[in-house]
């Protein structure tokens, strides 16, 4: 009887606990992997109302206590809660009679637990690096940031292989941590097309955000510097001098007040709607009613927003930052504009809004690409082949959880 392989995913977030993009990624990937012949177990943090154990579409989800006591800072909290993740991992692996084939860790937030489990139980470790501290902070400026950077580096070195979501990130991980490029797999994130198929009253929904004769320009992203919301604000007057549009910005962030006051200063307050956080189903509908989706990012490991725009058959206008240049090909699957350039961004938006046939051609190509390249089944197959490659090497080696009296302890 062929034994099914057990995969243990470690992630600090998993629905309903959603902080950034990792939750959706792990949720989608684990479900897609469970569709193949793998048994997938996810160990993650608790969330109010969520069960300690549940099975979601074949994925076994275990939630542990996060560290409840006051913490000096976020990183210390993270390291402390790893103790609980690790304890759960030991319990799970032993209950499966040590038959966990691969530990798949997501980002530095679970490094301590992942590396500990790897050595305690001699299970090969795979790490997905979603983003780096270096990239998030545009350099390392404090000991705190350096500590996190070194933790990321440590995790990527302890991993048998590293997965990144784009060639851009693979390069970044390679030079930032010194991991050889051939040990890094660039596997893109996917998008769940089912989330864009719900029936809804298009007219009534759209009315909540823009009037029927206004074009709806959608921005989804944290209101932080690297997402380029500031660039968008500067581009708005130029767009408005050519076309009547409403700019809908979904997201929160430290720049919100600055953006609002700048909008006021430019006299465009009535043309921009900061919605704050919106629930996922609403955002998915917004993608579908928008006339254009803009992603003016300055730093972007991947660019899931562009992918979602493409899945919703809405034309996308993006910069070429990071992973965006791999997702959006200019004039083919979207419009690419210059980085940090409001005039270029305005040009791109107008290009799409003024030429309906052009926009339609883009969305058709874009949708086709999403179906072919960014579907989770394909991504799961690629991920699975990484697991197989690791296991093939592991099986040939002597680093195993078997006890041999004669072998020397390694240093």
């Amino acid at each position, binding site marked *: 009887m062929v034994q099914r392989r057990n995969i243990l995913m470690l992630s600090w977030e998993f629905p309903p606990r959603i902080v950034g993009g990792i939750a959706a990624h792990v949720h989608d990937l684990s479900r897609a992997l469970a569709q193949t012949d793998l048994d997938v177990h996810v160990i993650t943090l608790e969330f109010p109302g969520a069960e300690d154990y549940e099975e979601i579409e074949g994925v076994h989800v275990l939630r542990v206590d996060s560290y409840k006591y*006051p913490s000096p800072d976020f990183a210390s909290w993270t390291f402390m809660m790893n103790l609980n993740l690790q304890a759960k991992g030991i319990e799970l692996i032993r209950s499966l009679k040590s038959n966990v084939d691969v530990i798949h860790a997501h980002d530095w937030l679970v490094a301590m637990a992942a590396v*500990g489990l790897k*050595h305690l139980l001699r299970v090969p470790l795979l790490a997905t690096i979603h983003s780096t501290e270096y990239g998030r902070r545009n350099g390392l400026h404090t000991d705190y940031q350096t*500590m996190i950077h070194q933790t990321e580096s440590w995790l990527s070195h302890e991993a048998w292989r590293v997965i990144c979501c784009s060639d851009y990130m693979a390069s970044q991980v390679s030079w930032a941590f010194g991991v050889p490029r051939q040990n890094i797999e660039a596997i893109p994130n996917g998008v769940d097309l089912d989330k864009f198929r719900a029936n809804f009253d298009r007219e009534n929904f759209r009315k909540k955000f823009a009037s029927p004769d206004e074009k709806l320009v959608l921005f989804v992203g944290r209101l932080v510097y690297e997402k380029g919301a500031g660039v968008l604000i500067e581009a708005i007057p130029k767009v408005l001098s050519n076309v009547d549009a409403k700019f809908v910005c979904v997201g929160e962030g430290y720049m919100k007040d600055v953006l609002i006051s700048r909008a006021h200063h430019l006299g465009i307050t009535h043309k921009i709607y900061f919605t704050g956080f919106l629930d996922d189903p609403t955002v998915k509908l917004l993608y579908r009613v928008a006339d254009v989706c803009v992603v003016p990012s300055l730093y972007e490991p991947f660019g899931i927003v562009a992918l979602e725009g493409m899945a919703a058959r809405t034309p996308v206008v993006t910069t070429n930052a990071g992973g965006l240049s791999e997702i959006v090909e200019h004039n083919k699957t979207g419009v690419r504009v210059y980085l940090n350039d409001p005039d270029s961004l305005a040009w791109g938006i107008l290009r799409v809004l003024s030429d309906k046939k052009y926009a339609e051609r883009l969305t058709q190509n874009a949708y086709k690409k999403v179906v072919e390249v960014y579907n989770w089944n394909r991504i799961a197959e690629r991920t699975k082949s990484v697991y197989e490659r690791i296991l093939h090497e592991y099986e040939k080696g002597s680093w195993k959880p078997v006890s041999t009296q004669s072998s020397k302890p390694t240093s």
Partner: protein
Amino acid sequence: MRVLIIAWEFPPKIVGELALYVSRVAAQLVRKNFDVYVVTHDDYRTGLDQRQDGLKVFRVANPVKTHISVLTWDLTLAAEFERASSDIIYSTARTVSLIDAHEWLCVIPAIALKKAFDIPFVYSVHSIEDQRSRGATSPFNLAITNLERLGCEEAERVLVKSTEMRDELKIRYGVSPNKIDVVQPSSDTWIDDILKVYEKAIRAPLQDFWRLAEA
């Protein structure tokens, strides 16, 4: 009998009194025919160091070099302690009978090893947070206090050097006095008393393990 001692300092890395104390314990255990491994920290002198008397010292570096507190320093080092200890346990066919963990810094690997391999541990307490940072209750102090409490809960035996410390643990962490052993380093029967604590932790007569020591 095979014993694994985890301590954050050991000669030649001498920061406080702990290094020399652990060194004495290890040396005495070796003289009593125990197979002793010490897992400790050193950022430079890493690797296995086999001494003439048979003591084996594994030094590991902290995998993360930049830190914002001794707490984060310890938490990343813990994974390397777990690695070195696991390697020792596997290479000795899982015949390590006992772990002796010194101070709060070594509580994390001790607990992990106990859960992974069912190896009991003795928590050797030399000081507690409330003595080091009198009355301080910042989140930093609380985190360390929590680790000390966790160590007391998960250990088979808690080993202290004075009746005063025993009373402190009773009051501060609610540890049952039945769980705490007092062995004064100045006593004539010091090392034999420690061995009795080890025996209690393993819950088997030491005679069996004398035989194992010869095996």
